[in-house]
């Protein structure tokens, strides 16, 4: 049984190792782009059933993120990046359940592997999200964003500011590990069940993986929207 935490390298571009998770993510990006272009060409003022379905999904996502972000205007401002994160993570997770992922091998290495079963991928996304939230904070309030963390106003604020600063790093780690743990554990589960009882038994676990993939994508998007919204909030007090 072939289970490894470290993703396997498929080939090298110069000295850059391309792993099977990276390759799978390229395929997912290509699929999303093609889907988006095709759908754009089919948009009509009076929607077909498919277009209505997609509009419903986007509207419900926006509604849900509005409750997270606080107000509609802020949710719409960050909807582009957050919804993209959501759809990319969702489709990556669901692509990992497709037959062929993990089983089609090239020199004993699986060509495709679920994108977020790789700690590198999840940590990269987590660091990106936290970095973006602070970038948006700087863009919103300028250098005063730093006064959230490093302030000499009074001892209580200084201390909690330092703790918040450390908390941002722990946020990176928790975001990365939550997604990695869920998806990698799902992969291990599917491999083991597939190895024990290949017929019928994997079906409920595939269903579980569909559900877990959706929930984890939602959690990631929710936390991203939450951090964007908190750091761009106008401060009630002035320094």
């Amino acid at each position, binding site marked *: 049984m072939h*289970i*490894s*935490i470290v993703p396997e390298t498929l080939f090298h571009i110069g000295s850059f190792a391309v792993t099977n998770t990276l390759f799978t993510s390229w395929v997912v990006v290509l699929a999303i782009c093609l889907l988006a272009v095709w759908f754009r060409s089919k948009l009509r003022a009076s929607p077909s059933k498919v277009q209505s379905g997609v509009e419903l999904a986007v509207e419900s996502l926006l509604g*849900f993120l509005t409750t997270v972000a606080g107000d509609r205007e802020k949710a719409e401002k960050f909807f582009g990046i957050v919804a993209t994160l959501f759809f990319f993570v969702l489709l990556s997770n669901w692509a990992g359940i497709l037959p062929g992922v993990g089983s089609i091998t090239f020199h004993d290495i699986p060509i495709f592997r679920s994108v977020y079963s790789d700690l590198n991928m999840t940590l990269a996304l987590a660091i990106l999200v936290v970095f973006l939230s602070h970038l948006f904070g700087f863009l919103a309030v300028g250098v005063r964003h730093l006064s959230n963390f490093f302030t000499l106003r009074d001892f209580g604020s200084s201390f909690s500011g330092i703790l918040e600063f450390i908390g941002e790093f722990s946020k990176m780690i*928790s975001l990365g*590990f*939550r997604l*990695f*743990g*869920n998806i*990698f*554990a799902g992969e*291990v589960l599917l491999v083991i069940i597939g190895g024990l009882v290949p017929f019928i038994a994997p079906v409920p676990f595939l269903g579980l993986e569909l559900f877990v993939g959706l*929930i*984890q994508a*939602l*959690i990631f998007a*929710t936390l991203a929207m939450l951090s964007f919204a908190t750091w761009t909030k106008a401060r009630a007090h002035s320094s």
Partner: protein
Amino acid sequence: MESTALAAGLAIGLGAIGPGIGIGLLAGKAMEAIGRNPEASGKIQTAMILAIAFAEAIAIYALVVALIIKFT
């Protein structure tokens, strides 16, 4: 004595106790709330699923440690 298996087993076994209790409490309170106010069950359900995913994340951290112990 080969203790990797024991270590992995203990890591996930003990690590799942807290989240298990936490999720049980969460779901129990959600059931109560739905019983009190069946109209709000959609909102309560959504919030419950979200909160359960956060509680479960702690169990997942323990699982990651167990997997690292087992496979490296």
